[in-house]
């Protein structure tokens, strides 16, 4: 089986985002960027499927600026076999990302496409589901467990009421949740090796995909700030406060 993994270069999850003074967006100048954490989990899952003998080849894809090459090199260092960068400096929305990935899927004919369930910058949680719709494939979203069995994919999903299991026909889309796995760190020899793995570059135009935005950002603002309140010195004082709030008798 062939796997496609989509990875996005985003603000590092440890960095506190700052809204630009002019309200045009979040300031990303000189900010540490990393692979979206959910996409790291996606890469790791693909590698594990390869290690189990389910998959034979892993192709990592990223859509973004030239620097997204670094993100793809990380995926290659973790264990992906080759990479495709669809290069653009534009901010690409999930619908356009899904269209680009669908065109790549037409060319590469993967059996499973693994994506993070959401990117921690725009928090849309939409690309995987949209890609599944465009391809007419089933979708195992928010996966906490993925097993290939008898030509099907069994996916356990983190849902509001607990854990739901679905069986999907292959080809299928999987989007990853936090507890699917713990991504590995790339070893130094593998980082060196990744430098010589193939990385192809295309553009949205090459693929015939219109990436014009459908959502116009009118402004970006800071959320209302909470003020730190008081500190109490004892449990008794806390109990009094809770009583005053009406939550305790």
């Amino acid at each position, binding site marked *: 089986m062939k796997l496609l993994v989509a990875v996005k270069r985003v603000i590092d999850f440890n960095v506190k985002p700052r809204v630009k003074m002019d309200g045009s967006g979040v300031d990303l100048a000189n900010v540490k960027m990393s692979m979206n954490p959910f996409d790291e989990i996606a890469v790791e899952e693909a590698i594990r499927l390869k290690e189990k003998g389910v998959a034979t080849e892993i192709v990592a894809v990223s859509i973004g600026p030239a620097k997204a090459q670094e993100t793809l090199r990380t995926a290659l260092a973790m264990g992906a076999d080759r990479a495709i960068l669809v290069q653009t400096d534009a901010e690409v929305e999930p619908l356009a990302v899904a269209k680009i990935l669908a065109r790549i899927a037409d060319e590469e004919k993967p059996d499973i496409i693994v994506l993070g369930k959401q990117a921690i910058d725009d928090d849309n949680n939409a690309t995987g589901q*949209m890609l599944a719709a465009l391809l007419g494939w*089933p*979708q195992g*979203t928010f996966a906490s467990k993925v097993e290939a069995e008898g030509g099907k994919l069994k996916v356990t999903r983190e849902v509001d009421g*607990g854990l739901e*299991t679905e*069986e999907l026909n292959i080809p299928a889309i999987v989007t990853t949740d936090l507890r699917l796995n713990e991504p590995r760190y790339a070893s130094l020899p593998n980082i060196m090796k990744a430098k010589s793995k193939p990385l192809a570059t295309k553009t949205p135009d090459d693929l015939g995909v219109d990436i014009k935005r459908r959502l116009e950002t009118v402004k970006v603002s800071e*959320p209302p700030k909470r003020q730190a309140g008081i500190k109490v*010195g004892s449990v008794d004082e806390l109990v009094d406060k809770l009583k005053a709030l009406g939550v*305790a008798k």
Partner: protein
Amino acid sequence: MSVLVLVEHDGKNVRDPTLPAVTAAAKLGEVHALVAGSNVGPVGDEAAKIAGVSKVLVADAAHLDHELAEEIAPVAAKLMDGYDAFVVPATTTGKNIAPRVAALLDVMQVSDVLSVEGPDTFTRPIYAGNAIATVKSNDSKKVLTVRTTAFDKAARDGGSASVEKVDAGQPAGLSTFVGLEASESERPELTSAGVIVSGGRAFGSSEDFHKLLDPLADKLGAAVGASRAAVDAGYAPNDYQVGQTGKIVAPNVYIAIGISGAIQHLAGMKDSKVIVAINKDEEAPIFQVADIGLVGDLFKIVPELTEKL
């Protein structure tokens, strides 16, 4: 403008997250509700009573059971011929289905809507709620998922909508429901609870997490939540997680115990009316958002608090 709301249900009853979605939809125009499922006639009748809903569409067929996105999305997308907007609560069910509908309609979804500013303008959180974006949708139809804590619940009664059967389509047959391992709990549901006690990694073990938090929650009639760290460590099941990628909650009182307050956690609870924090580290970021803080050892404080309440 005419709006179609997807009713979330458990096969028998309309689930709560539907109600704020109806409120959000009513800000856009006339609200119709879609109930899709298997043997969901009674759910349709219940949806018809929701205040603000003027018509209920019921798509009833075996293949629509368990709210599988592959089956529900084409039914909803087809019905959207007659509507300007599709509104869905931003629950795991809604987040699974809505983008699939949006892509079928060639529409870019607006996720996690916090407010409706106009017929095509909405606010939504980005970067774990560290920024709020105001976005204008240039698509002819809108697909929205709605943050349920950001809108009041529509009343469950007072409406008298007509109920109409609609075409349930043919099975897509791409996926099969295998089972649901439901978290059994007598306590209130996290997303609708008035009080939440939430625990972090500081509890050190699943045993202590439950031994200390459960009696406190019972005393307060509270739901129990957890930080990502506590869930990752196996102290609490996944559906306890509050945060950017877990549940978004806004109770009257949120009591964070042994939670340091990572931005990803704050994203899920900072709209709570009152935040109480108990932590041994007085520098913990949770105190920067807490209305009431108590610095100290949770292993001493929690039992004492439970006893004195």
